[in-house]
């Protein structure tokens, strides 16, 4: 059993999706607990993250690891009963009138694979839906994605509404897509990111998660 678990960590680290799938199935058949298997996958993900920090892995490698993680989740459903569900800490969506979702989906996959719970609001999301989600969940981070310049007004409307509803101080607003420092200032956001891997680091920083700390055996699912 220990050997299977060690091999699983290595298979994730080397981004061997089919081997990961086969080892997870083998582990479940041999009675290894789902939580232990997820912990092993997280260990592998942590090693992938270290390769990225050392610059011998690229964003595509992180994406590949996140795809493997998502595949594992189809084999090991995350439930309250097995104790692996986590309260969402990040709310993300593409703002109204914009349907671009590549960057949004990638960062959601990366965050979840690093053990951070995420609510995905989808695309073309009206401002009130973002604000209601902040109020209802108490998430610490609101991620607003947009690749159109028309997104800037919508993002600004969202931060204005957060202010009006006295919710702004409860949440850090991170914008992503076709954005820069000027857009961040205009929108009234706290951070801007144009790179998914950096976006994950920003979220970890906000959540006070040490980049080099051990992953927890919990994942967020929505």
């Amino acid at each position, binding site marked *: 059993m220990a050997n299977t678990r060690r091999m699983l960590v290595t298979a994730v680290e080397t981004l061997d999706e089919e081997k990961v799938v086969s080892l997870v199935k083998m582990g479940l058949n041999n009675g290894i607990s789902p939580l232990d298997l997820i912990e092993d996958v997280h260990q592998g993900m942590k090693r992938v993250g270290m390769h990225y920090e050392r610059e011998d892995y690229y964003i595509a490698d992180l994406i*590949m690891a996140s*795809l493997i993680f998502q595949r594992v989740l189809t084999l090991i459903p995350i439930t309250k009963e097995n104790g692996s569900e986590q309260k969402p800490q990040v709310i993300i969506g593409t703002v109204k009138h914009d349907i671009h979702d590549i960057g949004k989906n990638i960062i959601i996959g990366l965050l979840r694979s690093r053990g951070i719970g995420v609510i995905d609001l989808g695309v073309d999301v009206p401002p009130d839906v973002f604000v209601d989600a902040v109020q209802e969940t108490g998430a610490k981070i609101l991620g607003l994605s947009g690749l159109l310049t028309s997104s800037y007004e919508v993002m600004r409307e969202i931060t204005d509404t957060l202010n009006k509803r006295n919710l702004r101080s409860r949440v850090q607003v991170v914008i992503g897509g076709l954005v820069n420092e*000027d857009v961040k200032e205009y929108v009234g956001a706290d951070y801007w990111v144009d790179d998914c891997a950096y976006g994950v680091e920003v979220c970890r920083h906000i959540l006070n998660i040490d980049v080099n700390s051990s992953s927890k055996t919990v994942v967020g699912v929505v």
Partner: protein
Amino acid sequence: MTPEQRLQTAILLGKPDRVPCAPLIESYAGRRAGLSNYEFMYNYEQAELAFVQLQQEFPWWDVMRSVYFVFHGPIQKTIGFMKPMMPGVDLPPDSEYQMLEYEAITRDDYGLILEAGFHSFLNEFYKRVHKVNDEEIAKARRLQLDILNSQINRARQRGQTFLYGGFTVLAAPLLCMMRSLEQFIRDMYQVPSLLDRVLEVVTEALIADGIASARKTGIPRLFIGTARLTCQLISVPLFERFVWSSMKQTVFKLLDAGITPIFHLDSDWTKNLEYFREFPPGKVVIELDSTTDIFQAHRILGGHTCIIGDVGAPLFTLGKPEQVQEYCRKLLHELGKEGGFILGSGCHVPLEAKHENIDAFFRSVEEWGWL
């Protein structure tokens, strides 16, 4: 100098009398003329009137740099490489058009490409994605060529030159758009040899199409779309294997045919700029979209590769006119003074650009563009 002489001089790294002015203006022209974006995207005649009006306002706009012939509504809805969401049809009339990212082809389709060839596969792709028939595909192809020829002729009639003699996309980014980014990444890791073979077939077909298009229009320059797969995202070995090899092949075959490749470099190419030094000097053009550091690009490729760029969408939308002018002045002084530079927008001028910023952009050419 005529606009065409000016353009050719810049491409050949020479010093024209004035820096050529080539913003990629499409939908913004329609908005400025009072059209909805639906009207602009679906009514070519009205789109042309919008271009005329804008050029009359700004006679320094001497290089018509347009891919309207590719993104015209009925064309995109029939022979687009991705499924589009169009203003007035799928989106509100004044929206920008957008593309749906999904797995439009599967890994099994690679077998189809290898068996039937890319052109045959492409017809099946159009039928599958756009729900069209052979007749509609043929009609859209004719319309595309008609609009391109008309765009060229009308640009010349109003005293401009036209930049592109045709349009293509590099094989890897094209398959990436069809497969979706995530699935294409999976393919690079899991079926690299199969992907090599497919890319070879697709590259050959796209080169042939590009050469044919440039010959039909008589403009020996080709727009080549490249997106997503830079070293910002993928490793150097993956870039060299799946992108650079077909890029090199495309460039050298186009050059053999007397055609200048114009690479539209979306996203951050800073880490990949050195590769362009492998091409002969003065033979290739790159367009930067303001994500790549254009000043770094000039340090690496100045005197070797003509650069077009790169006033970005955020600056056009949120900036003040004096900021736009200052940025253009910097581009014209630092990149333009030695030649080999064409002032342009970074990718499209956004629909929401402030009118006063467009005025400032063109004014900068008049003030600081003369050499």
